[in-house]
């Protein structure tokens, strides 16, 4: 995983620059005529939501490849993308909730997007817990890969069942965050922040993968020493 080390610094610098540009565009963009300054929350919320779905997509692909190819690198990437995805999902939920307070007058509404995001967060926590709870690393890798794929199949079903549930039961009285049409002034900061968040996700993934790889190497060393001590 030497190549990760090589791209870490350039990617980090690029991320910082992109974030600076994004935040500058967010600050200089005019306030929305309906939402006022609260629209600036969406410049974090929307890219973060996109990134949490993108991380899950990445996790699914890496998990499927792992079951097929059995390479440890793929498993390391899978473990890292769970952590990165959880961070993005957490920020998505928190920012959506903070956006909801002034816009809906409540911190939380059981609308389809927020509910699916919450289920996604629980699923990611489950993936972490499952990996921690299995002692055999190969078993843990396999089980989390299978669970990730089950989750990938389940998430669309969850999303659409919540959509049907909410619309059939009580017609939506408000649009969720990100439902508004994105036009004109909103576009430049949103695009800039989206690019910055993609880079940020990549950078976090590189960092976490290296951390996982180093930790595994360290743990392997510890067991090796333990076994020598027994002889």
């Amino acid at each position, binding site marked *: 995983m030497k190549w990760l080390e090589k791209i870490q610094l350039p990617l980090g610098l690029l991320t910082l620059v992109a974030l600076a540009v994004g935040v500058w565009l967010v600050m200089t963009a005019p306030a929305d005529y309906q939402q006022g300054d609260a629209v600036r929350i969406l410049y974090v919320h929307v890219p973060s939501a996109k990134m949490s779905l993108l991380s899950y997509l990445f996790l699914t692909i890496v998990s499927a490849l792992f*079951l097929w190819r059995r390479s440890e690198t793929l498993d390391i990437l899978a473990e890292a993308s769970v952590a990165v995805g959880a961070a993005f999902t957490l920020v998505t939920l928190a920012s959506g909730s903070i956006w909801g307070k002034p816009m809906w007058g409540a911190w939380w509404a059981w609308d389809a997007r927020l509910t699916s995001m919450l*289920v996604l967060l*629980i*699923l990611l*926590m*489950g993936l972490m*817990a*499952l990996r921690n*709870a*299995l*002692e*055999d690393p190969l*078993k843990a890798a*396999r*089980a989390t*890969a*299978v*669970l990730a*794929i*089950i*989750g990938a*199949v*389940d998430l669309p*079903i*969850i999303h*659409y*069942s*919540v959509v*049907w*549930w909410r619309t*059939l*039961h009580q017609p939506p009285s408000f649009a969720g965050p990100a439902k508004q049409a994105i036009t004109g002034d909103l576009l430049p900061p949103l695009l800039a922040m989206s690019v910055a968040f993609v880079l940020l996700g990549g950078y976090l993934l590189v960092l976490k993968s290296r951390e996982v790889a180093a930790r595994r190497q360290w743990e392997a060393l510890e067991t090796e020493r333990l076994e020598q001590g027994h002889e």
Partner: protein
Amino acid sequence: MLTMVRAAYRIAWKDVVGDWRRRATLSSMLFFAVAVLVVFQVAFDPDRREATRLLPGLLWVTVLFTSLMGLGRVFQAEEEDGGFEGLLLASVPRGVVFLGKWLGNLLLTVLVELLLLPLTLVLFNVDVWGEWPSIMAVLLLGTLGLTGLGVLLAAMTQSARSRETLLALLLLPLTAPLLIAGVQALAALLEPGVAAGPWVRLLVIFDVVYLALAPWAFGWLVAE
């Protein structure tokens, strides 16, 4: 083909009969279900009208919690005497082993449901006896997918630390669509003029997806 079906059937039968002799899982599931009902009654103290409104959710929550009890034990016998390897070494494909385990768990869960439904109607004093067969049909339809997913997750967590907690943590979010569809379908049955069709269809989708996915996923899970 026929031998495969017979093998799956033998695995299921061994589990169910073994459990029946020891009365281990079945009785604890049943008592747990009654305990949940009592907790509900004490916590919400519903009158007759409220009870009818609460009934769909109440039934599904009880079924979900109760099935967790059963799922925790699906692979327990194998885990204890190391029979899991033996089961896998037997010259049947992994998918068939899964089907056998699933059938066994399905049978136990349905047995519990058959007792749970009249018990709930009596204890909560809800008079929907006329709808009894259709309620049971919806429960059964949901149970197919629930146990399919559940047995797969049980296999996944069988050698994990604190496996029952983990099983609940994994199963509950993934069954969200099942819970929504199941509760709405039952509510539609009990409320005149509401169509249960879309929700029943969602239940069927859930069943088909999991029962198609699970044997295959089980194969990956226990691969050499």
